[in-house]
């Protein structure tokens, strides 16, 4: 997917350090990027911090952007990596939380394509944000960004078994919260 014409013009402006182009670019993508950061953060304020940091990285490293690929995809990957590096920073301060039980629980069959239409995306986002951080990052990277277990393990500096265990826990978390709601609304 190629970047559209508008993007290319904006990028050229941003490279010249034109504040107006930077603002236009921000206005165009901030909604989507905040939506992405929301999945990694535990609330909107934290997500906004991640987004601002991410945009700073986008603007400062814009010269490394390879114009053959889609600009949005490139921005997304910057945002994701920014979120992960924040997670790594935090993880060392949470000594007690890291004392988690990584024992494997039975695989939960969670239908990712069977989300009841009655659930609004806001409600779903809230469910994801309430999830413990360790599960949330694994869910995000595996289910939403489509990374393999091995890649996720490297990104988060944990073992692959841990990633699998966390993923099943995350699925259980989701199905516990999504399907009771479905029953109520029926």
């Amino acid at each position, binding site marked *: 997917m190629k970047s559209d014409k508008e993007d290319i013009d904006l990028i050229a402006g941003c490279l010249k*350090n*034109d*504040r107006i182009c*930077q*603002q236009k670019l*921000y*206005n165009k993508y*901030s*909604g*989507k990027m*905040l*939506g*992405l950061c*929301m*999945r990694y953060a535990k609330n*909107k304020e934290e*997500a*906004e911090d991640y*987004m*601002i940091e991410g*945009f*700073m990285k986008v*603007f*400062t490293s814009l010269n490394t952007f390879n114009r053959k690929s889609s600009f949005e995809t490139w921005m997304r990957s910057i945002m994701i990596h920014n979120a992960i590096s924040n997670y790594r920073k935090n993880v*060392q*301060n949470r*000594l*007690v939380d*890291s*004392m988690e039980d990584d024992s494997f629980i039975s695989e939960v069959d969670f*239908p*990712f*394509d*069977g*989300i*009841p*239409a009655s659930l609004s*995306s806001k409600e*779903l*986002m809230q469910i*994801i944000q309430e999830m413990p951080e360790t599960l949330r990052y694994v869910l995000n990277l595996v*289910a*939403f960004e489509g990374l393999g277990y091995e890649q996720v393990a*490297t990104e988060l*500096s*944990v*073992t692959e078994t841990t990633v699998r265990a966390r993923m099943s826990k995350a699925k259980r978390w989701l199905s516990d919260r999504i399907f009771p709601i479905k029953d109520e609304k*029926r």
Partner: protein
Amino acid sequence: MKTRDLNEIMKEYSEVPSEHCWSSLEQQLSVVLPTDSTGISASQQGGSLATKIAASSGKIIVLSSVSIVTAGAVLFSVLHKKPISNSFEEIHRSTETVALVSDTTRTVDTLATVNSFVEKPKTMQNQEQSAVPAVSVVPVQIQSQTPSISQTVSSVNTHAEEVTSISTPIPSAIVSSSTTSTTTSNISQHSAVNQSDPVLSTITLPESKVVKISIPNVFTPNQDGYNDLFVISGIEQCDESRLTIRSASGRVVFDKMNYRNDWMGSDLPDGIYNYVFVYKTNGITEKMSGKVVIERGY
């Protein structure tokens, strides 16, 4: 029943950011990527102290040496002043003192060094360079005296005369402290008094245990009775700890909460391993990391 795909919903999800986001982004941009027109003015308008320092680091010399014991505080006072040669009305005062909560434990005599910067106004920068030193440092040394009930810490040596001789009167130091420890009241009470007095402030700190951690860089788990275990000395004094050992390729080979000096290398091949040791003492988390060699010698 209608269903949807979670991935699709989340991929399309977007949310309108709050209005302050762009302004704070713009502020950061003006520091990192200043445009010709907005660069200086935006950085003067403010933002965080850190932003300011970063922006004007070319103009002022930032001397920040901070070493702290227990729950000490970092007093960071930035004084902006104009030299004497200016008329009195022009004297621009701005004093910022930030007291930060310390993150550090451990020994050391010095508590905090307070560095004051005297920044010359931008207009005066070039003409007055030789006449007036741009930066004068007021070291405030805080020493711990009695380890008994509480560590009494006092600060001395304000080079008050030195400062006054090169520039206009010293602005009063305003201390806005945000300290979580019990020292808060002491700091603000004492240091707000007597700016011209040589004794600037007296800080009282609670007693705390001193933990000295030492991690070996090699051990030999060959059952010969010598150095068979990976022993971290001082570990028994940690309130909480976590030891993670990785192979050279980054695989986690050992990971334990509250390690009790009983690891024998778990049949790993000889070689270099990386450890990360995170521990908590006096409510403060610290991290040590390095390399350890397993060498069985056969």
